[in-house]
């Protein structure tokens, strides 16, 4: 990891990551143009072990690592026409594909809902648009509505809520001021919040 390197010092960095960048670019073009299995074999044998190392380091799991290698190299095979040598080297392109696949694999593994996907964050291959389902809207509450609900509470509950939530007093302070037991303040608060919640749910 190259964390915290000041970017200024890298401004003139020219990406010449591997000696064979030019060679790999040619292979990718051959794959795109003629589905050359020979060219793919070259790219594959160079990158597959490297991708496995990267994935093992990142995820520490052999099965996941192999899944990442497979998905990444399948993308290289199927989408080599999206590689643009003007934009960067083959290894940068393949790294970004692997990074995206890793991100999605890890989220899938944690059983997160499909709410964000790597291709939206980093449009490396930009294609799929998983059609997002319309989701029912939650009830919206405005301050005006809250005000109206508040005034519908019994007076005694209003007083307690007002003191606690508008004036910021503690329940004990409210009890002392109103000269009522602490337990009464607590139960009035609880009942009031419960009532407000019911009104919100209506």
């Amino acid at each position, binding site marked *: *990891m*190259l*964390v*915290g*390197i000041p*970017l200024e010092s890298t401004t003139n*960095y020219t*990406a010449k*990551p*591997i000696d064979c960048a030019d060679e790999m670019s040619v292979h990718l073009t051959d794959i795109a143009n003629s589905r050359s299995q020979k060219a*793919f074999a070259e790219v594959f044998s160079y990158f*597959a*072990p490297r991708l496995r*190392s*990267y994935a093992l380091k990142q995820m520490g799991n052999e099965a996941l690592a*192999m899944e990442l290698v*497979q998905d990444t*190299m*399948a993308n290289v*095979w*199927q*989408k080599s*026409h*999206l590689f643009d040598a003007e934009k*960067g*080297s083959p*290894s*940068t392109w*393949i*790294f*970004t594909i*692997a*990074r995206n696949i890793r*991100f999605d694999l890890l*989220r899938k593994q944690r059983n*997160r*809902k*499909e*709410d*964000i996907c790597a291709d939206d*964050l980093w*449009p490396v291959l*930009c*294609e799929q*648009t998983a059609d997002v389902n*319309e*989701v029912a*809207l*939650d009830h*919206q*509450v*405005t*301050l*005006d509505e809250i005000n109206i609900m*508040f005034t519908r509470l019994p007076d005694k509950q209003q007083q307690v*809520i007002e003191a606690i939530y*508008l004036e910021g007093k503690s329940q004990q302070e409210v009890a002392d001021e109103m000269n009522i037991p602490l337990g009464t303040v607590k139960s009035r608060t609880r009942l009031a*919040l419960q009532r*407000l*919640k019911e009104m919100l749910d209506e």
Partner: protein
Amino acid sequence: MINFHPSTQQLDDFVAGNCEPTLALMISAHADMCSHCMAKCQQLQNIQSVGAMSDVPTDHGPDFSAMMARIVQMPSAPGLTTLSAKQASIELDGKQFVLPRALRPYVKKTGDWSRLVGKLWQAPVDMGDLGRANFIYMEKGGKVPEHTHMGTEITLVIDGQYSDGMAHYDCGDLTVLDGQHKHLPHSEADEGCLVFSIVDKPLFFTAGIARLLNPFSNLFFK
């Protein structure tokens, strides 16, 4: 002019795929609006790929030949991109706001606008597990009640400008606020201000009638 950018560390984590998804989304959207950070990300990508792909494994490793044979059986996949097909803007009161690319998938998950108080509008965005997000539009003179955060609030200015008692924010500015900050966002810009804001925990209102919202802020700002 954009003054608030993600830190180099945050960009580095983003490029590596290691930052929190919500922050990643906001950085992605910011980079869509900020050519400076976009260029930085590309540099970081170059640097990281050198590190990530130069590691030649020492062990013999598995036999990849079956995998390769499987892959070359796959058909070539169709090309570019359906991004443009995604709805690129949201509308409020007949006014169209064009969104940065990264936020476009959420147009369909954006609910109706509702007026909150005075000159403040809110449209909730369903982010699933990611947190609670809103488009918030402040008309000129509009204010969000003073609040602090129990979690983190990440805000990106999409259109116009606003201030919050700590600083002045312009289109494209990205800010991350936590519980240490208490602020009162308001806009004095003639065209008002549209922001996209994600909170991972409910807001905590600190003043006035809005305090009454605290027990329900998880229902309110979602």
